[in-house]
């Protein structure tokens, strides 16, 4: 029995190693081929090592343009979606009101609708109302699918929030506005920040909904989709690798902050005793 348990233990470890290998394999391929020096238009086979495309990452005008359009949209989307979603999350967690269930449902539904249906329905709206598709309609579409994710993220943070802190501030003479700005906001700010980053990432990544609402505007994923047929330039691999490194970096910083905080809280609690 003990032997079987030990075999099971090691089997799970082996499985986890293989599992992580599977998850990271495409990223390794993307990174590896960002250093490739392909002979023709297709970056499929390893030809030789070069740093050229890391140096010339913005050298292709159409790609640079598409990337900047995507970043601009993602910035605007993250601001608008974060404001709209945070307000809803505040209402849902802090207030009991008639229609709360319906609001929860309306938040849940866009997340459980396939992107192609969201995109198709938005295009149906714009066609029927005669709205020309382009930068503005991409923006409207992206905010729509990001709001729900903001609500969920901020709600998770608000739920673990100690309301006594606010009552204490009020007892000490702070008014509602001051309490919100000095106590509530700083406490929920990490949640809001995470929600804004998530919206940014979702918007930057989106192809399916953008494809329906883009008109003639070319975003970064739309550029890749077009290039996929004729050969994707190596620079796309460079940008993919950079996105991975930035995502890991931001999340690692988040983890480090929460570890430091937890340690400080424990030290404070020990000191108080």
């Amino acid at each position, binding site marked *: 029995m003990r032997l079987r348990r030990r075999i*099971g233990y090691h089997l799970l470890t082996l499985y986890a190693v293989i599992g992580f290998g599977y998850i990271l394999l495409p990223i390794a391929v993307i990174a590896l081929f960002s250093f490739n020096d392909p002979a023709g238009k297709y970056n*499929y086979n390893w030809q030789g090592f070069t740093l050229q495309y890391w140096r010339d990452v913005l050298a292709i005008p159409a790609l640079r343009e598409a990337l900047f359009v995507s970043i601009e949209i993602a910035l605007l989307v993250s601001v608008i979606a974060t404001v709209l979603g945070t307000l*809803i999350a505040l209402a849902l967690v802090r207030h009991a009101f008639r229609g709360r269930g319906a609001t929860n449902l309306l938040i849940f539904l866009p997340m459980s609708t*396939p992107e192609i249906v969201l995109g198709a329905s938005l295009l149906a709206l714009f066609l029927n109302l005669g709205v020309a598709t382009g930068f503005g309609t991409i923006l409207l579409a992206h905010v729509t699918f990001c709001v729900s994710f903001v609500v969920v993220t901020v709600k998770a943070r608000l739920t673990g929030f100690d309301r006594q802190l606010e009552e204490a501030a009020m007892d000490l003479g702070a008014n509602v506005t001051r309490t919100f700005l000095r106590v509530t906001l700083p406490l929920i700010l990490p949640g809001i920040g995470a929600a804004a980053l998530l919206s940014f990432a979702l918007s930057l990544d989106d192809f399916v909904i953008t494809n329906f609402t883009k008109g003639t505007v070319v975003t970064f994923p739309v550029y890749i989709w077009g290039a996929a047929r004729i050969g994707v330039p190596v620079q796309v691999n460079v940008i993919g690798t950079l996105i991975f490194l930035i995502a890991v970096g931001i999340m690692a910083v988040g983890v480090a902050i929460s570890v430091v905080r937890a340690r400080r809280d424990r030290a404070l609690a020990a000191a108080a005793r």
Partner: protein
Amino acid sequence: MGYLRRHPRAVPYLLIAPGLVWLGFLFVVPLYYLASTSLQSGDIYAGFQQTFSWSNYSDMAVQYRPQLVRSVQYAAIATIAALVIAYPLVYFIARRGGQWKSLLLVLLVAPFFVTYLIRTLAWQTILADEGLIVGVLRDIGLVAEDGRLLATSFAVVAGITYNYFPFMALPIYVALEQFDGRLLEAGGDLYANPVRAFLRITLPISLPGVFAGTLTTFIPAMGDFVNAQLLGTPKQYMIGNVIQSKFLVVVDYPLASAGAVMLMVLILAGVFLYARALGTERLTG
């Protein structure tokens, strides 16, 4: 401010108003227009009129039945594959991650921040005919000498499985993470057999996560068209490929809308049956 103090009940409504108006106009109203367009007839030159042509639905169901069936099949296989791959992996992180738990989770999630299309193109490279995997599989005889992986159903399902992996992994992780490890130790003492302890304690506790994960994987997988396009051939096309090409290439808006509504109805029916089978409290709980 004075108004709010006199009418505290208005506060939540003022907070939700901007977001709900937005979702009302850009999520609910569009679904109405999608349904309405699906009953129109006409063409792009003469224009489309509302004629309540239900034939769009029968045309869709008859002409594109293989794609509809394929969508259900591919999504179901990919969902099961993702469950089989994800469960032990997140179990490992939740139970054995220790102080590295958070960093392992970062490593699990970060790949999926890389642009979806770039990730799918990486699978194109991995599964390519001259690629490493096909070479090894040919050598050990699992793939015939002239056999391929790319441009097959396998490639499409593999792509879908990978791309929606976090939707399966994260809910299960949350469910496993929330429960007390001491419960398992106590269970281990009582049952002695680790397999029975797993079946009696861990598995039931993680089921809500499995339930949520299957839904959040299956739903987007049903509507996917990117994997079939980049990793498959027209022989692997799914209903998503039909909807997007009818909308954006052929510009037959009514037929395309009928396809999108059918997809939505299929998914809602699937979710309903699944929830009935497992008990509805798991859906919201």
